[in-house]
């Protein structure tokens, strides 16, 4: 039944070779992108209705990056997911309702109101939640990979960061350490052209992907709006890492199609630049490709819409946390609990029969 994809552009042949996607897999890729967009649109509405306290950040336009890359992960792999990468959370198994509850600071959200926005990770699903300081998860991902390497487990740690983060010292320390120990870690650099209002020119002189070679590992650049290209690069990187071939830096070129946060009107973005990327919407691009191959996608849209309605209702029914619990849990009394995540790619799991929501 497996239908190999056409080889994505911009990748070395041998890298794409390992990544086989079935028609169902491709449907899943679309579904997760749609689910990410729908969830974020819903969250933005809730924000505008005053249901989301604090600020609101999303990954509009970047759906292909987080979905394409996280889709390559196996259940026992681990992920440190960043603020534009809701798709990765969904793939690991976080339900949209929990995301919405998280944004609203409610119980049932991933952090039960302790943290907000995208600052979360479900430890039961193999995720270590990001902190705001960027890119602090890069060294942490190295530590996860170090544990795998020391225990001789064929597992991978994946983490994401933006173009802005590459200027930070922790980025360098992580890259260098990953190279020296040839750690099984995959770094996904989401170049969405800006760090808040700061354009690439003020962040670096040359593409950070070029640094990978100097750190002693592979750097590949992919079209971040082509979900299959991102997937292929990620799958190749994961395979390499699992085989003891060390880290990979994947630079995915994309564009942040919303403001840095909901408060940001993006006045600093040149309209031509915005237009150019608006014509390359990752979901539209992918649907067009699927359509050209005669693959039906309407049912996926309907399923996602239904799911979102149910999930939103669920989220809105969650209570706020009890103030009396505010000081609990500063210290742990038990050892780490890091469970396995969902891994919807058909390589990892037989397609679930009950429906798309694994």
């Amino acid at each position, binding site marked *: 039944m497996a239908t190999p994809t056409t080889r994505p552009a911009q990748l070395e042949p041998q890298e794409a070779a390992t990544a086989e996607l079935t028609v169902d897999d491709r449907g899943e890729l679309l579904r997760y992108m749609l689910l990410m967009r729908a969830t974020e649109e819903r969250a933005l509405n809730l924000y505008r209705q005053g249901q989301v*306290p*604090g*600020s609101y950040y999303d990954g509009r336009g970047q759906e292909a990056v987080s979905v394409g890359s996280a889709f390559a992960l196996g259940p026992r792999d681990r992920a440190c997911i960043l603020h534009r990468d809701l798709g990765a959370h969904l793939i690991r198994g976080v339900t949209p309702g929990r995301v919405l509850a998280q944004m609203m*600071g*409610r119980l049932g959200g991933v*952090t039960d*109101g*302790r*943290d*907000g*926005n995208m*600052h979360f990770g479900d430890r039961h699903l193999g995720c270590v939640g990001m*902190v*705001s*300081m*960027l890119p602090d998860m890069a060294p942490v991902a190295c530590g996860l990979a170090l544990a795998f390497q020391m225990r001789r487990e064929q597992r991978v740690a994946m983490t994401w960061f933006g173009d*802005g*983060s590459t*200027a*930070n*010292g*922790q980025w360098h320390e992580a890259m260098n350490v990953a190279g020296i120990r040839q750690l099984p870690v995959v770094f996904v650099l989401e170049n969405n052209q800006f*760090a*808040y*209002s*700061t354009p690439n020119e*003020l*962040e*670096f002189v040359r593409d950070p992907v070029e640094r990978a070679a100097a750190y002693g590992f592979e750097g590949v650049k992919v079209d971040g709006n082509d979900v299959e290209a991102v997937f292929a690069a990620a799958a190749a990187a994961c395979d390499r890492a699992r085989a003891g071939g060390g880290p990979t830096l994947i630079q995915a070129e994309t564009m942040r199609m919303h403001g840095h946060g909901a408060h940001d009107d993006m006045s*600093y973005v040149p309209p031509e630049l915005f237009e150019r990327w608006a014509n390359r919407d990752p979901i539209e691009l992918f649907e067009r490709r699927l359509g050209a191959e005669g693959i039906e996608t309407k049912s996926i849209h309907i399923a996602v819409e239904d799911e979102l309605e149910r999930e939103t209702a669920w989220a809105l029914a969650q209570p*706020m*946390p*009890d*103030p*009396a*619990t*505010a*000081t609990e849990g*500063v210290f742990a009394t038990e050892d780490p609990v890091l469970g396995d995540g969902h891994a919807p790619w058909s390589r990892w799991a037989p397609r679930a029969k009950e429906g798309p929501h694994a």
Partner: protein
Amino acid sequence: MPELTYLEAISDGLREEMRHDESVFCLGQDIGSFGGAFKVTEGLADEFGADRMWDTPLAESAIVGAAVGAAVEGMRPIAEMQFADFIACGFDQLVNVAAKMHYRQGLAVPLVVRLPSGGGFSGGPFHSQNPEAWFLQAPGLKVVAPSTPEDAKGLLASAVRDPNPVLYLEHKHLYRRLRGEVAKGRYETPLGEVRVARPGSDLTLVAYGAMVHTALEAVEDLDGARVEVLDLRTLCPLDREGILGSVRKTGKVVVLHEATRSCGVGAEVCALIAEEAFEDLDGPVVRVTAPDVPIPFSPPLESAVLPQVDQVREACRELLEY
């Protein structure tokens, strides 16, 4: 005198300093044409150019380190952390390079680091912190925390003119909620002097930053008690005499801050009083602070953690009755 918000007062202060002295410049993330995450520096890039309003990359150690280098060469850099929380990422340059420079080699480092700090608006664990106490454990740094628009501008001027590294804590929650009269032109509010925000003789309530307003609200009508509210303004060096003088008069003291409790500035103030004014004390030295916990995001949790007016009122009342 014009009425300005706390935020406008800081902007105004920055503009005055930059007009007054060519060697003053700003650096930080998104502070240039974007005007900063909170729009404190809005318009400054238009007036002073991109060179004096450097939109840096996301690199706090480089920001503080470059500020140190420029400062010793006679510039007067004002670095902005996008949130005070990020100072943890430029920490080493501050506590090891900037702080110890003069003591070790007699070289002055006139830099200011602006720290938009504090919570109260669901910023969560990484956008609500009050990191001031760390810097009292790093001799060589000065720390200020204005509570009013007037002091915001005046302390900024003093911080910029001071030949030492000064951490300038501006409370985000006051930015647009607080207005007050602010004199035009340049003026300096001296470092190291408390302000009596409300005179009194029954109890001294010590606070700084946003908590000064919580303090004032809490004691506005406390069964007729005359509570003196001290606004510390400068946290390092502390105005020891200013604090002790008030306590000697009242004999009772509550210390209030938004930062977490252990080894906070409140601990220092209490220790100072317990040592230097013991004989004048008519009751325990009481602290009202955030407990030792990260600042949670969700409103009910956050307000359970941050000191509230009622809590302060209750603490004062209890001590008054002691």
